[in-house]
C-alpha cells in the first residue's frame, strides 16, 4: 500500500520511500522517513495534489509522488 491509496482523513506509517535521486532526497528532507506517521488531510479541488500532515506541519504533494511512498501494512 502507498500513500496514494489513503483517503482524506486516513493515516498510516511510512515504511520506505521508493523514489530515486533528487525527488527521494526532497521527500526525505521534508521529514517523510521510515516510521513517521502521516495523515492525508484533503485533496485539491481538482483532485490532485493532496495535502498531508507530517511531523506537525502540512505538506502538499502530487499523487504520482505520493505513490512513491510505501506504507506499513
Amino acid at each position, binding site marked *: 500500500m502507498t500513500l496514494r491509496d489513503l483517503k482524506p482523513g486516513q*493515516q498510516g506509517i511510512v515504511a520506505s520511500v521508493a523514489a530515486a535521486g533528487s525527488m527521494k532526497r526532497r521527500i526525505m528532507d521534508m*521529514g517523510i522517513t521510515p516510521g513517521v506517521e502521516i495523515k492525508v488531510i484533503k485533496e485539491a*479541488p481538482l483532485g490532485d495534489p493532496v495535502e498531508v500532515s507530517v*511531523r506537525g506541519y502540512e505538506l*502538499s504533494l502530487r499523487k504520482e509522488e505520493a505513490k512513491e511512498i510505501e506504507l506499513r501494512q
Partner: protein
Amino acid sequence: MGITIALAGNPNCGKTTLFNELTGSKQHVGNWPGVTVDKKDGIYKKNKDVKILDLPGTYSLSPYSAEEIVARDYIVKDRPDVVIDIVDGTSIERNLYLSLQIMETGIPMVIALNMMDEVKARGDEIDCRKLSEKLGVPVVPVVARSNKGLEELMAAAVEAAGKQPRTEWPGLFGEELENAIAGIASVLGDSDPRESRWKAIKLVENDEVVSKSLDPAKADCVKKLVEEANRKAGGDAEAKIADSRYQYIGKIVGECVRKARRGHVETKSDKADKFLTNRILAFPVFAAVMYVMFACTFSENFLFIEGLPSPGIWLAGIVENVWGMLAGAIVGAVEGMGASEWATGLVSSCLDGIGAVAGFLPLVLVLFLLLSFLEDSGYMARVAFVMDRIFRHFGLSGRSFIPMLMGFGCSVPALMASRTLESDKDRKITMMITPFMSCGAKLPIYAMFAATLFADGNRTAVVFSVYMLGVVVAVIGALLLNKFAFRSEASNFIMELPQYRMPTLKSVLIHAWEKVKGFAAKAGTVIFASTVLIWFLSNFNFGGMCSMEESLLALAGNSIKWIFAPLGWADWRASVGVVTGWIAKENIVATFGQLFGGVSDEMVEAVMAGEEALPAISEVFNKVSAYSYMAFNLLCMPCFAAVGAIRREMGSWKWTLRAVGFQMATAYVVALLINVLGNMVF
C-alpha cells in the same frame, strides 16, 4: 573587530522578519553571482561592528536547488563567524533537520527558537535549556515579529562567535556509519578536521558537488569506502543518514517538547482552508482575490465606478503629471538659455526616458504591496496547490498563474512576480511566455486597426481574438520550451503549506520597497539607454537633425522591410513602428499617426481609443496583413522596460537574449502562419 553573522532557516520560519528587525533600514539587496537568489546583507542596528547576512530559506543543505547551494557554499566556504539558525517552534522537527546539517559544518551556531507565541497559544511547551543541552548549542526563545528576545539572541550569537563549537554528536548516525565517515575523513585529511568530517558525511550522502571536487588521487579510495558504507547501511546510506537525523531529532524533541495534543490538530489555518481551498469555493474565491489585485493595480474604472482610477493608476497619473510639469519646465529653461534644437531634443528625450521608468514605479509598488501580502500570509502556496493540476499539463506549476495573469495589465510587474516561483526552470519559462499576455499598452494598436479595417460588428471579436492568440501561443510556447529547451529538469511539487499568518505592515512595506528600488536601478538603465538611442535614430541622419521620414531609423526601416515581406507588410513605416513600439507599445499608433500623413495629437488619442480610424494605413495593410502585424507586435520583444525586468530577474544577459530571441522567433513564425493561411482563406 567586526563579526559576520549569517541567518539561516527554513522558508516561512520568520527569517526575513528577524532580518528586518535586526537591521532596520540599513540593508542592501542584490543577487548572488550567477543565480537569481536574493542576497541581502545589513548592519545590526544596535552595533555597527556586526554585519548580518540573510541566507536563502532552505529545508536542507543538499545540492538540489540554487538556494541550497548558495546557503551551504556560503557557510562552508566563506565561513561566517557564527550562524543564527531560525527554528519555527510550531514545526520544530523539520526545522531541526536543517540545524543538524548546519552543525555538521562545524561553524559556531545559535538557535533562535521563533514563533514562541504560537507555540504557547497551542498549549505546547518547549524546554529551551534542555534542548540547548542536548544539541550542544545555545537556544534562545524569540518572537521575531514583536521584537521579543532579540537582544538576548544577539548577545548569545556574539558570545558564540569566539568559541569552539561542539563537533561530535554521539549516536547520531549509528556506529557503522560513524566509522565509515571517520574512515573517509581520515583519507581526505584536510587541514581542518571539521571540513573533512563534513565532506565525508556529504560523500556518504552521494553529494555530486562534493564528489566532483575530490582530489583524483583520493577519489578511488573514497569511492570504495562509500560503497562499503552503502553495503553496511543495507544499500542506501543516503536514506540512512536522513533517517538517522530525523530519529535523533525525534528523540530530542520527545524529551524537550511537551505537546498539548498528539497527532494532527485542527488549527485556525485548517479552518480557513476549509473555505479557501474548498472543492467548490476555491476557484470563485481565487478569482475574486485575483480580480481585486488586478483592479487595485491597473483598473481605470475602480470598483466598477466609471472614471474612478485604482490606487495604482491614480499614483501613476500623479507621477506622470508631476514629471510632465517638471520636464516641461526644464525643457523650457534649456530653450530659454538659447540651446540649439538638437540639444533641447536630447534633453527632452532623456527626460522622457526617466519619465518612462518613473511611470512604472507606482504600478510596481501597488502590485508588490498586494503580492507580498499574499505571499507572506501563506495564500500564495494555496494558489499553487489549487492551480497545479491545470498548469502541470503545460509543464509548469500552479504558481505560474499569477505572473501570467498580471501580464494582461503590464509585463513589468508581472515579470517581477515570477520571483515567487520555486523552480528555476518554471521561473525562466514563465518569464519567456509572460510577455505573450497582451498588456494594456498593446490595446491601442488593436483599436487602431479594428476601427480602420474591420467592420463595426467584428471589432470586439477581432480584439478579443488577439488576446486569446496570446494565451494560446503562451501555452504552446511553454510546452515546447519544456520539451526541447529544459528537457533534463524534472519538476516536483513537494511544497510546504505554511500556516496562515497576518503579515506585519513593516515586512510588506520593506518587500515592496525593495522591488521598486531594484526595478528603478537595474531596469531603469536599460529603459533609459534604449529610449535615448531610438530618439537619436529617429531624429538624425548623417547630415544632422532631420524629420523622421529622412532619419536613420527610416533608412533602417527601408533596409530591413524585406524581412517582413513574408508576413505581409514590407513597408518601411510598418518596420519603424515595430522599433518605436519597443520604447512603449502604444508608440506604434503615434508613429503611424506621424508617418501616415501627419495627424494631430488629439487625433492620435482618438485613434488609440478606437474612436477614430486612420484611413491612410489601408494603403499598406489589408485585413490579413493587419492581423499579422498585430500578432507580431503582440508576441515580439516586449518594450524595453519589460526587457529590463527580464534582465534583472534572469540575472544574466545570456538568458535575457535567449528569451528575447525566443519571443522574436515565435512572433515571426506566428505572423507568417497568419499571413499564409489568412491569404488562403480570405
